[in-house]
């Protein structure tokens, strides 16, 4: 082999992974105990175990990423390792796409198959006639076969504003990306900061929308299949926006305080940006299939 080869960095032993595994054990066991104990008079310790696990997970993230940043800035990482990071992030986002696909699948199945069948479509005439004669099979299901009633969430108000906010945040993030590649640090800080603010505003509006849904519309998580799909899809999306905003905030702090990243080495920034664009695309699908159609 005539070309020079930079050694692929294989780290020494690390305690963070098993630390993280124990943290996830506490999160999992705590969450399971919590949901089984919630609402019971004797209460329980699940909630504390869960939050202890989350706290350990945060400690692990700081420690682990701190190590990675130190290794990276001391020049241990080759281009090949950089490609590993990129590919891992891409596959991770693909796995997230598949997670959302499960919930979109549930939405489509309910709308196209389950609800019409309950109303007697296909060869289910007797189901509709004998089991749920008063059920009106339309989407959104505002009165379930069991009789729970709710009101629909219109797409024109807050959801439309939120769509514009997220689209704008993708544009500002792209401007920040161009700025980091041009070495324009001032513009990078402003536009990345702007993206985070837009994300926070989006989340604020969503909280407002949820309050509105529960208080004024009677649209709740347990209001039948319409409320189920609405809250799980928008809720998991909101969780992902929160994670994405935290990622961007960490990147922004690293840029402002530590002056990290250069014009040609900024994978951390890029990974967070990819994640943000992914969250944006999920929202566009949500807006179309959950709100508009």
């Amino acid at each position: 082999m005539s070309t020079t080869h930079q050694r692929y960095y294989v780290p020494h032993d690390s305690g963070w992974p098993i630390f993280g595994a124990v943290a996830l054990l506490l999160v999992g066991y705590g969450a399971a105990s919590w949901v089984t104990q919630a609402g019971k008079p004797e209460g329980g310790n699940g909630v504390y175990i869960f939050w202890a696990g989350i706290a350990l997970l945060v400690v692990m993230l700081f420690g682990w990423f701190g190590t990675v940043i130190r290794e990276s800035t001391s020049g241990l990482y080759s281009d090949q390792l950089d490609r590993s990071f990129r590919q891992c992030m891409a596959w991770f986002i693909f796995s997230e796409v598949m997670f959302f696909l499960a919930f979109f699948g549930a939405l489509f199945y309910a709308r196209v198959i389950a609800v019409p069948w309950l109303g007697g479509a296909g060869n289910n005439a007797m189901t509709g006639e004998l089991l749920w004669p008063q059920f009106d099979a339309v989407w959104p299901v505002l009165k379930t076969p069991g009789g729970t009633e709710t009101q629909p969430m219109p797409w024109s108000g807050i959801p439309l504003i939120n769509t514009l906010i997220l689209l704008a945040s993708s544009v500002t993030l792209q401007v920040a990306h161009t700025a980091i590649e041009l070495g324009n640090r001032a513009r990078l800080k402003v536009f990345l900061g702007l993206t985070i603010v837009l994300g926070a505003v989006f989340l604020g509006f969503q909280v407002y929308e949820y309050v509105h849904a529960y208080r004024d519309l009677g649209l709740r998580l347990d209001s039948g299949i319409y409320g189920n799909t609405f809250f799980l899809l928008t809720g998991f999306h909101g969780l992902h926006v929160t994670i994405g905003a935290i990622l961007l905030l960490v990147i922004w702090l690293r840029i402002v305080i530590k002056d990290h990243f250069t014009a040609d080495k900024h994978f951390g920034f890029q990974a967070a940006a990819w994640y943000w664009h992914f969250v944006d695309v999920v929202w566009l699908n949500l807006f179309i299939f959950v709100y508009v159609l």
Partner: protein
Amino acid sequence: MSTEQTGALHPGEHLDHEHKPRGITRWLYSTNHKDIGTLYLLFSLAMLFIGGSLAMVIRAELFQPGLQFVDPHFFNQMTTVHGLVMVFGAVMPAFVGLANWMVPLMIGAPDMALPRVNNWSFWILPCAFAILLSTLFMEGGAPAAGWTFYAPLSTTYSSDSTAFFVLAVHLMGVSSIMGAINIIVTIFNMRAPGMTWMKLPLFVWTWLITAFLLIAVMPVLAGVVTMVLTDKYFGTSFFDAAGGGDPVMFQHIFWFFGHPEVYIMILPAFGIISAIIPTFARKPLFGYESMVVATASIAILSFLVWGHHMFTVGMPVAAELFFMYATMLIAVPTGVKVFNWVATMWRGSMTFEVPMMFALAFIVLFTIGGLSGLMLAITPADFQYQDTYFVVAHFHYVLVTGAVFGIIAGVYYWLPKWTGVMYSERLAQTHFWCSLVSVNILFFPMHFVGLAGMPRRIPDYALQFADLNALMSIGGLLFGLSQLLFVWGVVRCMRGVGDKASDRVWEGAQGLEWEIPSPAPYHTFETPPVVK
């Protein structure tokens, strides 16, 4: 250490990485693909025996008609946890362990792409199974809805173990997804110069495609268990008609995960068999390209056939026909593989060491499982077979004499490379023949009782099934005991008892993993080899 250096290092040159940590932290903190592979394999072996013990409870209860030892609810817990432990605890981690050990060696990589994430993936698994198995000791017992946890059995009619089961599955999913990402990126990004796609050993190819399937469907499993959790505890009605949902929707989402999942459990075994047959036939694999294309075809088709698990739930006839024909189509690439293995052996100079024996048993017995799968794929016939012991026979032929025999074949094949000593051929041959005879006593009669109408997952049965059930239970006990011979053989090698293995180990072995010393050094290919 300078970060830039030329590739012309001497093979024996030691750098600062060449330290081998000692004590317990070597295993807890490991970033070494070989150590982590060993951990996966040992974990899987432990789970094989835990899952096997649960199966022994099932077989003890079914030894005679009537209720002998356990009440029906506990029987349901046994079938459920047996399935979950074997699928997620024994078979999948065993393949991940083999991938950890062998993929970097086969492609000439210094380690996995992200060694620390690799360690995290492993250590999440014991945590997940601690949560799952802890439900056995809880009030109300472990999950009892079957490993497929159909709603409403897992929602309306389940104990609080559901919450623990769901969170355990989430952790298993996190582990699998991170493990799969690591493997896929290792194969994409870490191949030695000259290791082009069409030179990859088939084990690497099959694992690449398996990893893709894992990343695609484990999140769907996470989604469906989340819906089970919210249905049970947060008042949603995804799987409840009264709220506008549908219990059949559970089965659709579950099997969209579940069908690729069964290929996740067999494709790496295809890779192992494709490594072993050429070695002991002393001929190159027949039809390498067609093997790659067949593996990819099976993976793509696996996303289109989930409905064949649900022929009797009331799908429209058009859907039943689509799923029937799509399922039968899978027989084509699978048949390509079987014919290729047979053609590889044609006029080869064959020897019959134990990896080859298990591989040959795999080809015959897996094909039996595949053919009973074709019978099950015929929609009208499936109305008779659905939920009988015929189905149990089918998936145990593909999973035990398929996946598990593939794993055992791989372990015997690579054990000398891992430990540096040959296993005892006599002990291993005894293990093979005991396993082969007992596994068929255990599972073959299930075809007959199933066709005659014995339902699965029921602790009691009609009197006419008594003789064959007693026979199957004896077969099960013998099969379980036979695996102790396997443990004995492996432990002997791990302790270094046996003849020293040569570097190539097998006369006909080809590939990078046989170019390095036996036992494999702690670090290999820190400088990539050049593949011609």
